[in-house]
């Protein structure tokens, strides 16, 4: 046998009952029947009694129970007293309801609202909730500023992010100068780890994508060129497209998603973990230490990856070619005829710049990331988007320059 009050408390958490006289016992099965059958819909009744406002609470206020029924009219007047004789069990639904009521009634009033008549545990919870006054935030402040002001702020933001980029690129150039004059300090091991990450470890994905791109070019080219009976020119199409554009652009896009994002995430989480501050107070320049090895590694590895991607792409085209009646030897000879050293070096030259763009946007976003895990995620996204955008923009610029130069 258990004391009924204890048991009820255990079963229903905040359950409230009128205290039973001492020594009054209910057996457990009996109580379960009571709780199962006694569920009443929650009910709040406003009453005015001799000029005072009374809120009567009845029924069981429980999550998943019936909707709260409010009857009677509330006046402006604060509640003087609560009547809870018919109140059954309750969970957080009831205090939340009461708090919302008190808040809506007591706007701008300093006096503590009356909690008279509430059972002790409910009263305790409300006192706790009311202990610190509600912070009133004017949510419209930002929206109220005039359009010109917002435009001004926007242009200031754009300007400052533009100067940020220029500043970072400038710092990179200074760091490269320091490196060339032998004054930059970083661990050579870090450089080799970066070289491995953005070199050898990128080979599988570069292989797959380049091979497929070569195949796609050959398929599409063959479908069109066969109409003119010129399907041997598929070899020219695939090889020129690969070495001039597709090889380097696809590699750059793969690397910005793979490596640029990794740089941003790594440096960003180092920042949020105060590791960059620790570098600084230990006398290491975080720029030399973190950005330089990554920048170098990408600048060194991108040309190699591009050459590799070109070759693999041409092999992919060759495979398709052999299906559509161009023997591999013929394809190869045609390829050698169509690309000159100048043509094939265009992609490689671009790859150096693309490598720098990927490293700079990755590292910059990482170094400027905020100090939370969400900020690190944001930095990663920005790094990829910025890198891909700049790659395409730079590629267009290169196309224009090469056209002007007649290459």
């Amino acid at each position, binding site marked *: 046998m258990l004391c009924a009050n204890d048991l009820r408390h255990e079963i229903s958490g905040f359950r409230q009952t009128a205290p039973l006289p001492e020594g009054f016992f209910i057996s457990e099965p009996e109580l379960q029947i009571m709780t199962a059958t006694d569920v009443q819909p929650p009910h709040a009744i406003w009453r005015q009694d001799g000029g005072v406002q009374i809120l009567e609470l009845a029924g069981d206020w429980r999550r998943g129970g019936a909707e709260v029924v409010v009857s009677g009219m509330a006046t402006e007047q604060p509640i003087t007293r609560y009547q809870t004789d018919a109140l059954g069990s309750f969970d957080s639904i009831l205090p939340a309801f009461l708090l919302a009521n008190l808040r809506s009634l007591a706007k701008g009033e300093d006096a503590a609202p009356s909690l008279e008549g509430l059972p002790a545990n409910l009263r305790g919870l409300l006192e706790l909730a009311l202990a610190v006054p509600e912070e009133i935030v004017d949510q419209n402040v930002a929206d109220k500023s005039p359009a010109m002001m917002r435009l001004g702020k926007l242009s200031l933001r754009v300007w400052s992010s533009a100067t940020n980029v220029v500043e970072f690129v400038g710092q990179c150039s200074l760091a490269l100068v320091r490196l060339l004059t032998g004054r930059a300090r970083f661990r050579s091991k870090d450089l080799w780890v970066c070289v491995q990450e953005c070199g050898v470890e990128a080979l599988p994905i570069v292989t797959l994508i380049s091979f497929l791109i070569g195949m796609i070019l050959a398929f599409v080219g063959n479908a069109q060129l066969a109409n003119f009976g010129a399907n041997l020119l598929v070899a020219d199409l695939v090889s020129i497209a690969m070495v001039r554009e597709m090889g380097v652009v696809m590699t750059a896009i793969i690397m910005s998603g793979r490596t640029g994002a990794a740089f941003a995430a790594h440096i960003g*989480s180092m920042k949020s973990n*105060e*590791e960059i*501050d*620790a570098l600084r107070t*230990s006398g*290491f320049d975080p720029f030399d230490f973190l950005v330089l090895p990554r920048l170098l590694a990408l600048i060194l590895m991108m040309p190699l990856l591009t050459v590799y991607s070109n070759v693999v792409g041409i092999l992919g085209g060759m495979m398709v070619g052999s299906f559509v009646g161009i023997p591999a030897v013929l394809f190869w000879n045609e390829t050698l005829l169509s690309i000159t050293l100048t043509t094939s070096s265009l992609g490689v030259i671009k790859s150096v710049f693309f490598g720098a763009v990927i490293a700079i946007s990755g590292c910059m976003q990482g170094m400027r990331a905020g100090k939370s895990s969400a900020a690190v995620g944001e930095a990663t996204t920005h790094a990829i988007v910025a890198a891909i955008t700049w790659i395409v923009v730079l590629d267009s610029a290169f196309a224009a320059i090469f056209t002007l130069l007649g290459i």
Partner: protein
Amino acid sequence: MAAKISVHDLTLAYGPLVVMHDLEFEIQDQEIFVIMGGSGCGKSTLLRHLVGLMEPAKGRILYDGEDFTAAKEDEHAKFTRRFGVMYQGGALWSSMTLGENISMLIEEAGKLPAKTVRDLVAYKLALVGLAGYEDYYPAQLSGGMKKRAGIARAMALDPDILFLDEPGGGLDPLSSKRLDDLILRLRDSQGCTIIIVTHELASIFGVADNALFLDPATHTQGALGNPRHLRDHSDNPAVRLFLNRGTPPPTRRHE
């Protein structure tokens, strides 16, 4: 003799937001000095100013009478070389082992034979109770071990001044106590000045010679002095509340 560190009329600010103003205090040689105050009141910001990670909006910080705030960027190293800093989470460089974390600093400071470096690293780790952990990565350690490793790294070059940011934060009472003992022993045997940012009362009473209370309500220093003295005799009620966990001191039983 000039104070080890003296701070004059210091204002800490993030842009237009002033965190603390009119800070004025001195820290003596070989003192354990605690910067205390509620969460978010600017304790760590003050530390970041002291170690040169942030520029003060106003005021001066002097080390042995030499002006740190007026020093140019390239002269900073002259000051920071004497600092050891342990950050909140240890801030160990996560891509390096503990051994590399420490040896990097030692190798940077000057050419030493490989064996000497190895021995020094082993000694520093042994000092903080992490002997034999050279090849562990920070991610493999518990929070308390990371903090101790952070102290070992901060001690790597036998600094003159050791800054510890929340050394006891998030540790169980026993680890926290062990860390306090470590701090006291390091001070006694190495003779360095130690500045601790914390709000853990047990640590404050356990180790501090002097303490500075930063009052978030007035945005300036609330009190300066020995924490045991401040607990009972400070003029500032906010300080007494803080040091007594919000309750006025009970009738004195023996401590």
